[in-house]
Structures are given as structure tokens and as C-alpha cells.
């Protein structure tokens, strides 16, 4: 448990570097950052936040079920959470596609439509931040799905190995927390 928390601490500081970047540009160029943020898809971001919060709930419930040795509910809840996580990635992909068509996503395609250089900077930060988060999501989904599968075929006996579920759950919650901060910092800068 302590080991996992320490690992999470290092993850937090990993994203901390990105938040430091966001903070820097918010302070240096408040207006341009607000303008750039306003062009993002607030509602997709909100929907994604809701998806993640709900999946976190499912994971918390799954941990509880695992503690009590309830095999089937635990597996079902974990699969559900992984499914919601997958939904998040799908929405994210839709969002990226829209942004590519708008000429907002750097690194893809040749046509860009940035209203200012600072907006390009902001979108770079947005891409690295959300991309890194999506990479963490992918790992998390794989872990949750793997857990659900192993619980389902009894290779992970419950409640004896409930700690494993709890530790993986911690990781998922952390990915959720990171998004909880990314969302206002990137989408809601006003």
C-alpha cells in the first residue's frame, strides 16, 4: 500500500511539471490562454469528466465487493469501469478529430488555424497533457480488464487477494484525479 502511494506520488509530480507549464503561461499571457481555452469543447470535456467520476465509483464499489469476496459483482463492476474508461478514450478521439478539422491540434495535418502563437503553445500543452493522460488511461483500462478477467476465471482468489484489487483501484482513482485537475486548467480557463 505504502509502495503504491509512493508510486502515485511520483505520478503526481510527473503531471506537476505540466501543471507548472500551464500555470506559467496563464500568468504570462492571461488573455491569450483564456481565448485558446474557450475554443476547446467544454461539453465533451464535461462528459468525459462524468464518465471518469462514474468509473471511479464503480472501482470503489468493486474494491468493496472484493473485500467481501463477492466474485461476480467485483468482476462486473471492474469490467464496467473499464468500459467507461474505454468510452472516455472514444470521446477523446472524437474530440481530437474535431480539433484536427478545426486546425487546432498541433502535430497532425498541415492546416492550422491558430489565432495567436500563444494559442499554439497552449494547444501543444493540451496535446501533451491529454495525450499523457490518455496513455495512463490505456494502461489503467488494461489493468482493470485484466483484473476482471482473472477474477472471473478464479485465478485471482477473493477475498484473499483483495489487496491487489485495492492497489489497482488506487491507480485508477489517481488517473481520475489528474483529469479532475486537467479539466478546469485546460477547458475552463476564463
Amino acid at each position: 500500500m505504502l509502495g503504491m502511494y509512493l508510486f502515485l506520488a511520483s505520478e503526481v509530480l510527473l503531471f506537476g511539471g505540466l501543471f507548472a507549464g500551464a500555470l506559467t503561461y496563464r500568468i504570462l499571457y492571461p488573455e491569450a490562454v483564456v481565448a485558446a481555452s474557450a475554443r476547446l469543447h467544454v461539453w465533451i470535456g464535461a462528459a468525459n469528466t462524468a464518465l471518469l467520476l462514474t468509473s471511479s465509483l464503480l472501482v470503489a464499489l468493486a474494491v468493496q465487493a472484493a473485500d467481501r469476496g463477492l466474485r461476480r459483482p467485483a468482476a462486473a463492476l471492474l469490467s464496467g469501469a473499464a468500459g467507461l474508461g474505454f468510452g472516455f478514450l472514444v470521446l477523446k478521439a472524437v474530440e481530437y478529430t474535431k480539433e484536427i478539422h478545426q486546425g487546432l491540434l498541433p502535430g497532425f495535418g498541415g492546416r492550422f488555424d491558430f489565432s495567436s502563437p500563444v494559442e499554439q503553445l497552449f494547444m501543444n500543452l493540451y496535446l501533451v497533457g491529454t495525450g499523457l493522460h490518455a496513455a495512463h488511461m490505456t494502461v489503467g483500462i488494461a489493468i482493470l480488464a485484466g483484473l476482471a478477467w482473472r477474477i472471473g476465471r478464479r485465478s485471482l482468489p477473493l477475498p484473499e487477494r483483495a489487496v491487489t484489487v485495492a492497489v489497482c483501484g488506487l491507480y485508477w482513482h489517481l488517473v481520475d484525479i489528474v483529469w479532475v485537475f486537467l479539466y478546469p486548467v485546460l477547458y475552463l480557463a476564463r
Partner: protein
Amino acid sequence: MSMKADAARLIAVWAALMGLLALTVAGSFFSLGAGNAVLGIGIAVAKAALILWFFMHLRRETPLVRIAAVGTVVWISTMLILISADLLTR
């Protein structure tokens, strides 16, 4: 404590999180100047605290783990505060 009561509490926390999400989105449509940033980050902190405390079971962990969690928050805030101290006084 019974399974149901535990589950009910988690669901209540989830409802609170969704409420906060609605609040933060709604808040972004009002122009409050610096208030927007404070509101956005404040709500994010509240959400993170709820997740940590209930979903991540920090309330049942040993003091050591709590220190680790609080320490992390202190660390990252230190970094952000000292960097902004430079930016704001340049």
C-alpha cells in the same frame, strides 16, 4: 458496517462529485475575473479530496500513508508557488 450502507455512502460521494462538476461547468459561464480560476481549482481540490478520502480509503489508512499523501500535495504546491513567485515578480 453493512455492505449496503457502504455502497450508499460511495454513491452519495459520487452524487456530490457530479454536483461539483455541474457547478464548475456552470461557473465557467460567468465572468468572475480571477474568481474563475479560484473557483475552478477550488472545486478540483474538493473533488480530489473526496476521491482520496472515500474512494481511495484514505480515511482508513495508517497515518504514514496519510503523511505520504499530504506530503505529495505540499511538494507539488511548493513547486507551483515558487515558480509563480518568480513569474509574478519579474
